[in-house]
């Protein structure tokens, strides 16, 4: 005997392990035992093998490695005696699984044991085979098992039947071999055999269509008889479970009936009576009875049952649902979820009870109920259901809020019929559980907001109010801050008040306060803070009076330790301080986001995380001076939103503008000339979408000037020395590129125009004759009116020439007037030069400008355009913008 072989008994080892006070002690004991066992293994000790295996199993259960004992199992199984075999098979099932190759070695022993004269040894082999056999073993040993199913011993029969289940699962092709034996076993009387045979038949039906047909033909009568016998049987103590005779057999029979009756009217009809009997007669005061009723309901729902039977089933479910036992309610919800496809109306009737279950104390029930509610929602009940769920969000416990929020959001998005309702619900969810709202949900909200021009005012005011009360909700803060930045003036001026909307008085400095507070909140993350900075910057242009203060706030972060924030602060400060002349055009409102393409993208790309930050410094423009550094496009969540991800590797770096406008131009030309991928487009959150609009992003290498006709009204245009590359660049742009001229230039850029003038083939609009469509007033404010006249190009319905007329309604002259327009992707826009840049006061004359619009989706989508007019009144910058959605139909 080896010195390590302590020879302790199993009981002693377990005691020793249990006596250990620390994990280290336990490890030491186990190590000692394992060493002893290994020693015994290597010495091939016969007597202790049996005990060592038992010890190994215990050690295995504690989670220690025991692979060295695997071969010992095989030796024990190969031994002659029953005790060795019993422990050996147990060890085999515990220590090995079907993946291990050692298992193949046992096939031969198994085969011998299956043919053993002792029924218990056959039983052990069948049990082991049934629990861990692999596909190869199944093939090898299937004939033995098949034979054993027909032997005389009941215990062997039922084990063989169950073992066949495993074989059929592993090798479905073998199903046909077992059809006939299974059918013959169904005629037996012994419950164990019946249960096993029914389970085998169920498995066969799943595995093969032929088997299903065979059993339908041959066994349906048997099955009905089994169920009838067991449910009518008198008290049998050995099978009795709380007054019901063998609920297991009941349930298994009902389950097989469901499979046989599914989609087969004859079979189903045959079962109707017995199902009705079980459904009505089974006692429902104990778990066993309820289990049978539950299975019975499932079967009734699954087969082609009569409507009377269905009503019976739904009633049982109704009873279940109002049961006080949580288990019963759980299965009722579960069942209703399946019943909804059969009889949605009946399930709808239980809506209020189900909604109560959403508020249950039990997480399992809540989860189930919530899933069910989600299935119950339809166009008619979405509003009350959402209201209930949103109300519940108030009191739901934090663990559940995540699930609940996700479901509410998806219901609201899926079923919203009107935008206002959608926005209202989203605002509520954001307020109550903003920190649980997923990024893509609030991104989608922003897309919707940007498209709902008539609701933007309302939204920004609602969000502002919500922000005051629920500043701790991350997503709410982001959406609110974004809206305040974009639509700040609507917040202050109460633009677009809805009926019944409460009037809030917000001053310009209040709006700035809100953003500042959001920025300084300790829980704000980098993205939120970055969005706050953008919002502040935007507000500085919307509310010139707060500019000083914003400069201060932004300035405070020039030394922020987060690079992103520091960079923004520095760049934004310089925009506020030094580039007032271009600031207003730089910080114009974001163009409308394309809803359709966003939805497609959201559906397809699960997580496009191409971060804008990575792209920005991709190309270092050689020889180009970078006056203010390079502004990054906004943080990645927005980048995703803004379509950046599809732009691939194109570096969409935006150069912030330079100190002097002439410099700016030089820069622009320089950019074109040096062929770097810099776009002379002002940076801000809108950059990316602008790129998109300009289709620049999709061109892999180049972002040149916005290639279109710049509107330059300056009369004193002087030719400049043309930079040849720039021309080339522009000239080479294919005419098919969808280009919308978002002109970004202050009028101090006389040179660009000439440069580009030569490129614009279409000159000013010839006249107003042949107007097929009535004129529209595209925009009207207290100060300015814009009308559009239309002329169709004969032969090309897609193209429309628009003649825009700008009229000054005030008594002071507008100077440096610039008109800008942006269109969705499917529209191409060309702007002709305007007739002048000064709009005389009081409507004494006007400025006109031609626009050529090509609608690539003519007939499918109407024209849409956002316009913007910037001008100076007495040297002061003014900016007006709007969306033109009243284009005549047919354009």
């Amino acid at each position, binding site marked *: 005997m080896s010195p390590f072989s302590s020879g302790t008994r199993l009981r002693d080892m377990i005691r020793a392990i249990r006596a250990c006070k620390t994990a280290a002690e336990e490890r030491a004991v186990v190590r000692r035992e394992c060493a002893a066992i290994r020693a015994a293994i290597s010495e091939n000790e016969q007597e202790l093998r049996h005990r060592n295996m038992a010890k190994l*199993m215990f050690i295995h*259960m504690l989670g220690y490695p025991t692979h060295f004992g695997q071969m010992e199992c095989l030796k024990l199984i190969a031994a002659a005696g029953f005790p060795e075999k019993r422990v050996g098979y147990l060890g085999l099932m515990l220590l090995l699984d079907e993946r291990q190759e050692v298992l193949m070695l046992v096939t031969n022993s198994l085969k011998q044991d299956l043919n053993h004269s002792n029924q218990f040894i056959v039983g052990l082999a069948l049990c082991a085979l049934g629990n861990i056999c692999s596909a190869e073993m199944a093939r090898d040993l299937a004939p033995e098992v098949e034979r054993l199913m027909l032997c005389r011993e009941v215990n062997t029969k039922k084990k063989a039947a169950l073992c066949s289940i495993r074989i059929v699962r592993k090798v479905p092709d073998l199903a046909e071999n077992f059809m006939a034996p299974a059918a013959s076993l169904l005629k037996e009387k012994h419950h164990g055999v019946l249960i096993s045979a029914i389970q085998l038949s169920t498995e066969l039906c799943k595995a093969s269509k032929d088997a299903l047909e065979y059993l339908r033909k041959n066994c349906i009568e048997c099955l009905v008889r089994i169920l009838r016998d067991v449910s009518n049987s008198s008290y049998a103590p*050995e099978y009795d*479970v709380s007054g019901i005779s063998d609920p297991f057999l009941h349930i298994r029979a009902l389950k097989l009936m469901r499979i046989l009756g599914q989609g087969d009217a004859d079979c189903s009809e045959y079962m109707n009576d017995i199902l009705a009997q079980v459904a009505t007669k089974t006692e429902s005061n104990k778990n066993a009875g309820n289990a049978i009723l539950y299975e019975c309901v499932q079967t009734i729902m699954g087969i082609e049952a009569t409507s009377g039977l269905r009503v019976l089933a739904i009633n049982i479910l109704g009873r279940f649902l109002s049961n006080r036992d949580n288990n019963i309610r759980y*299965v009722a919800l579960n069942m209703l979820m399946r019943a909804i496809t059969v009889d949605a109306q009946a399930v709808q009737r239980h809506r209020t009870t189900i909604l109560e279950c959403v508020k249950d104390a039990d997480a399992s029930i809540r989860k189930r109920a919530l899933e069910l509610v989600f299935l119950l929602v339809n166009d008619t009940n979405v509003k009350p259901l959402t209201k209930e769920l949103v109300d519940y969000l108030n009191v739901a416990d934090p663990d559940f809020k995540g699930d609940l929020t996700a479901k509410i959001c998806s219901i609201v998005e899926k079923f919203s019929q009107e935008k206002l309702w959608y926005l209202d619900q989203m605002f509520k969810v954001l307020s109550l559980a903003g920190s649980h709202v997923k990024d893509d949900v609030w991104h989608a909200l922003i897309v919707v907001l940007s498209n709902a021009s008539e609701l933007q005012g309302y939204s920004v005011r609602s969000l502002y109010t919500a922000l005051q009360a629920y500043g701790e909700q991350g997503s709410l803060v982001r959406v609110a801050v974004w809206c305040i930045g974009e639509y700040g003036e609507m917040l202050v001026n109460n633009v677009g008040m809805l009926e019944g909307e409460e009037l809030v008085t917000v001053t310009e400095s209040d709006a700035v306060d809100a953003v500042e507070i959001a920025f300084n909140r300790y829980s704000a993350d980098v993205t939120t803070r970055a969005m706050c900075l953008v919002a502040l910057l935007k507000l500085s242009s919307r509310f010139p009076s707060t500019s000083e203060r914003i400069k201060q706030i932004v300035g405070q972060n020039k030394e922020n330790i987060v690079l992103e924030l520091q960079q923004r602060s520095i760049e934004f400060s310089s925009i506020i301080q030094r580039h007032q002349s271009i600031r207003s055009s730089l910080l114009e409102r974001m163009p409308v986001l394309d809803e359709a393409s966003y939805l497609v993208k959201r559906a397809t790309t699960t997580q496009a995380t191409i971060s804008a930050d990575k792209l920005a410094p991709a190309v270092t423009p050689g020889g180009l001076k970078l006056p203010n550094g390079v502004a990054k496009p906004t943080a990645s969540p927005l980048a995703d939103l803004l379509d950046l991800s599809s732009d691939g590797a194109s570096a969409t770096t935006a150069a912030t503008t330079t100190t002097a406008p002439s410099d700016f131009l030089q820069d622009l030309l320089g950019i074109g000339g040096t062929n770097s991928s810099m776009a002379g487009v002002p940076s801000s959150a809108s950059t990316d979408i602008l790129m998109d609009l300009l289709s620049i992003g999709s061109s892999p290498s180049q972002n040149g000037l916005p290639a279109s006709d710049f509107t330059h009204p300056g009369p004193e245009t002087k030719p400049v020395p043309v930079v040849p590359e720039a021309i080339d660049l522009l000239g080479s742009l294919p005419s098919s590129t969808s280009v919308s001229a978002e002109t970004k230039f202050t009028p101090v850029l006389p040179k660009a125009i000439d440069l580009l003038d030569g490129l614009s083939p279409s000159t000013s609009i010839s006249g107003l004759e042949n107007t097929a469509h009535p004129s529209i007033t595209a925009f009207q404010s207290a100060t300015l009116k814009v009308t559009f006249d239309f002329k169709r190009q004969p032969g090309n319905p897609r193209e429309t020439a628009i003649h825009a007329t700008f009229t000054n309604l005030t008594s002071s002259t507008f100077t440096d007037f610039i008109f800008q327009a942006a269109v969705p992707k499917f529209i191409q826009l060309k702007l002709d030069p305007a007739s002048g840049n000064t709009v005389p006061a009081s409507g004494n004359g006007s400025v006109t400008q031609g626009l050529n619009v090509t609608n690539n989706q003519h007939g499918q989508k109407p024209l849409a355009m956002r316009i913007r007019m910037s001008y100076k009144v007495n040297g002061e910058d003014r900016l007006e913008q709007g969306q033109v959605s009243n284009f005549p139909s047919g354009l």
Partner: protein
Amino acid sequence: MIHFALLISRQGKVRLTKWYTPYPQKQRSKVIKEVSTLILARGPKLCNFVDWQGCRVVYKRYASLYFCMCIDPADNELETLQIIHHFVEILDRYFGNVCELDLIFNFHKAYFILDEILIAGELQESNKKAVLRLVTAQDSLVEAAKEEASSLSKIIAQATK
């Protein structure tokens, strides 16, 4: 079908594991850890079912032990609860007022009993007495073999004296 059966104590100690669906050894310990934290955290009056990774774990607490069985979502949860109870009743009859210590020191007996109740994750026998009869019959077979061995060794010992 039942994917696995698990017995854990209130302290999270494993008392019995039986796998009917192959899980690699590494994953087994992960599963045990996940399921036990899930179940031990649940309060006393909640329902006995927990959704776990697309399956459903049915559990019931008897004294200090949690009996758990993982089933397909389409299976009958109430019946599984009944199977657990079936198993516990048989254990109780076999050991005579079973307690956790019985299952610790005679863990292999618990396995033998389970093997007479379930095979391939399906129920084998609904008759408690039949199960007990089979297990005791096999136990006595083992006893007989032991006696035989000891009497044999006595004879050898006497013969060699």
